[in-house]
């Protein structure tokens, strides 16, 4: 039987010391990690010693199935490039994809705010249907609840997905070695900055759209040419590339060195970050993934990505080294370097 017994769970000690929940705990950075590792994991998750990944591996009668879930709280609900519906489908498909699984079916739960116009709900459901079709996944069920006016920001959506693991692809932080290359599928920061601008609270305008998309086909492209070389993958959503790679560095005990000028970014993202004093490496992405690939497969993997539709901007942004252990270092053109930490706090709440 998987999971803890009730007695074990009741007795498990928690290490989470914060007296109350704050926005930072949902931001995807350090505080989030503290909450998951300090409260949820000891009480709820089976102690397999495995690092917490994007999807869980569950065995039913000997067959391994991938399972993952994600909730989407976005304000505003619609924004350039997409809406909460698309995020809900793509986000969960992407979590499965970077865990090496092809999403097979999704279920969705809706928490709707009293007073939500039906037209808004219908638009989102249509958006989900469209996204599901593009992603090649079926929606097989769901649940709906309505809460009082004033809660739920209009609507919250949670999607849970199951899928089958791709043969030959294993994703394991412990398999990462010094010398491995780090691939990024495309420009960073589009989603987070688009949301920030879409809120209209700042007098900022730019020609930007969310990058939300299902990246399964890109992962499949890499797998087709370089499956044995894939060590680890993840999608850098909340907390950005910096948080995701810091998690990897901690999980594998090695160092990650990125070359600042290799990291692709649209001018508008750079400009907005400069104007607001934000670090692009901490901004959420909804249509990108990072892959750590063995050096002898890196070129093939990158080539496969660049050839695939939507992967043209993919590039190698750095490599794994033995030091600085458990940290991410970004080097600049003229030899300066700085450690980039996980996101601390929550500069951009309610972005995905």
């Amino acid at each position, binding site marked *: 039987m998987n999971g803890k017994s009730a007695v074990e769970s009741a007795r498990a000690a928690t290490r989470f010391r914060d007296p*109350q*929940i*704050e*926005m*930072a705990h949902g931001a995807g950075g*350090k*505080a989030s990690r503290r909450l998951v590792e300090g409260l949820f994991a000891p009480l709820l998750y089976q102690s397999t010693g495995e690092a917490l990944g994007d999807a869980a591996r569950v065995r039913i009668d000997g067959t391994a199935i991938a399972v993952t879930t994600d909730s989407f709280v976005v304000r505003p609900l619609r924004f350039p490039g997409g809406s909460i519906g698309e995020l809900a489908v793509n986000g969960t498909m992407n979590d499965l994809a970077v865990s090496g699984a092809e999403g097979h079916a999704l279920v969705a739960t809706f928490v709707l705010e009293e007073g939500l116009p039906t037209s808004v709900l219908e638009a989102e459901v249509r958006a989900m249907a469209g996204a599901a079709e593009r992603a090649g996944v079926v929606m097989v069920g769901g649940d709906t609840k309505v809460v009082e006016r004033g809660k739920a920001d209009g609507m919250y959506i949670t999607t849970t997905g199951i899928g089958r693991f791709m043969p030959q692809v294993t994703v394991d932080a412990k398999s990462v070695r010094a010398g491995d290359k780090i691939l990024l599928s495309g420009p960073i920061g589009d989603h987070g900055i688009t949301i920030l601008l879409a809120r209209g*609270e*700042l007098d900022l305008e730019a020609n930007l759209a969310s990058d939300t998309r299902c990246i399964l086909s890109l992962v499949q492209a890499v797998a087709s040419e370089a499956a044995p070389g894939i060590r680890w993958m993840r999608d850098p959503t909340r907390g950005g590339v910096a948080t995701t790679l810091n998690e990897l560095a901690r999980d594998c005990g090695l*160092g990650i060195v990125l070359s600042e000028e290799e990291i692709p970014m649209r001018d508008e993202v750079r400009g907005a970050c400069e*104007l*607001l*004093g934000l670090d692009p490496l901490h901004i959420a992405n909804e249509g990108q993934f990072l892959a750590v690939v063995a050096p002898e497969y890196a070129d093939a993997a990158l080539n496969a990505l660049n050839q695939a539709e939507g992967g043209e901007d993919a590039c190698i942004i750095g490599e794994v080294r*033995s*030091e*600085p*252990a*458990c*940290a991410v*270092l970004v080097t*600049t*053109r*003229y*030899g*300066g*370097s*700085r*450690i980039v*930490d996980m996101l*601390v*706090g*929550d*500069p951009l709440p309610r972005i995905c």
Partner: protein
Amino acid sequence: MRYVDEFRDPELITKASEEIYRLADPDRHYRIMEVCGGHTHAIYRFGLKDVLPSNIELIHGPGCPVCVLPMGRIDDGLAVAKNSNVVFAAFGDMMRVPGTHGSPFEHKARGTDVRIVYSPADALQIARKNPEKHVMFFAIGFETTAPSTALTLMRAKAEGIKNFSVFCNHVTIIPAIRAILDSPDMRLDAFIGPGHVSTVIGCRPYEWIARNEGKPVVTSGFEPLDLLQSLVMLLRQLRAGEARVENQYKRVVPWEGNRAALKAMAEVFQLRPYFEWRGLGFISQSALKIRDEYAEWDAEQRFPIPGTRVTDPKAAQCGEVLKGVLKPAQCKLFGNECTPEHPIGALMVSSEGSCAAYYNYEHRKAAAMVTSISSVA
């Protein structure tokens, strides 16, 4: 020109670095203070120490307006915000600064309406859009920011917007520099002068440093080449035994300052007789308060203010670090009890705090290297 890329040209950086090596007297140990927190951050962010000779010591000055604010002022501001219809609006930098009962973000989690704004104008806009609420803008900053607060107050008055006020913590830079020079434990050779404060006050206010104290001052920009060029200019003066004020940041800083900005400040603000600075104690004529003509928009006149005085935790050495007497890593709490995630003092959370700069750019690198070496050995 893009005004950014050009000033990060690697070839020119190398050239400037070589010139600094050439100019620095190997028998001399230079102690140069960069006053401005933004300069401290730039120095660490661009790894400039890596291209400087070891006998140039850069000392971090108190030019971080969040860092020098005593905790009691934050407590006072948050006390006002406890009123149910008050919105506490402040720059993002303020949000995780610890008050006695938590930071603004922590107060937000407990129900206070706390909002990040990127401009005092944004705060005024919230007031316009929410007539049933009272928006209190918690203003911080040196002379760079004070004129913008002043203009915003002028606009609020002109438009008759009554549901808006400012809790004013603006401070002035010259008294802080004076306090540093008066401090017996400080021996300095020269100053990298503030960049953006100088766009408002100009370069004249620094002349007494050169004339009376005999220390050269070069007002500097924030790009790597700006800072390196400023060091070249300072070293040239030091070699020649000169002490003058020079303006490296000519493209932005007018020697005479910005008259319209100074006028706006004079219209709205007056100097407080004295103000308490973290680390530097009470300094006379060093901070701004809102004039009576704008009393309606002065949070300190509209709301009862507890007037809390809170001393820093005994073990925290924020004051010494602010004065440049201690390096961040020399504070006993640095990296242990005090980190960006659970800061004891503002120097560890502010985007211009020297502890934050050191921690994020240097300390973690060094600590990671030590871990690596010890795990290999």
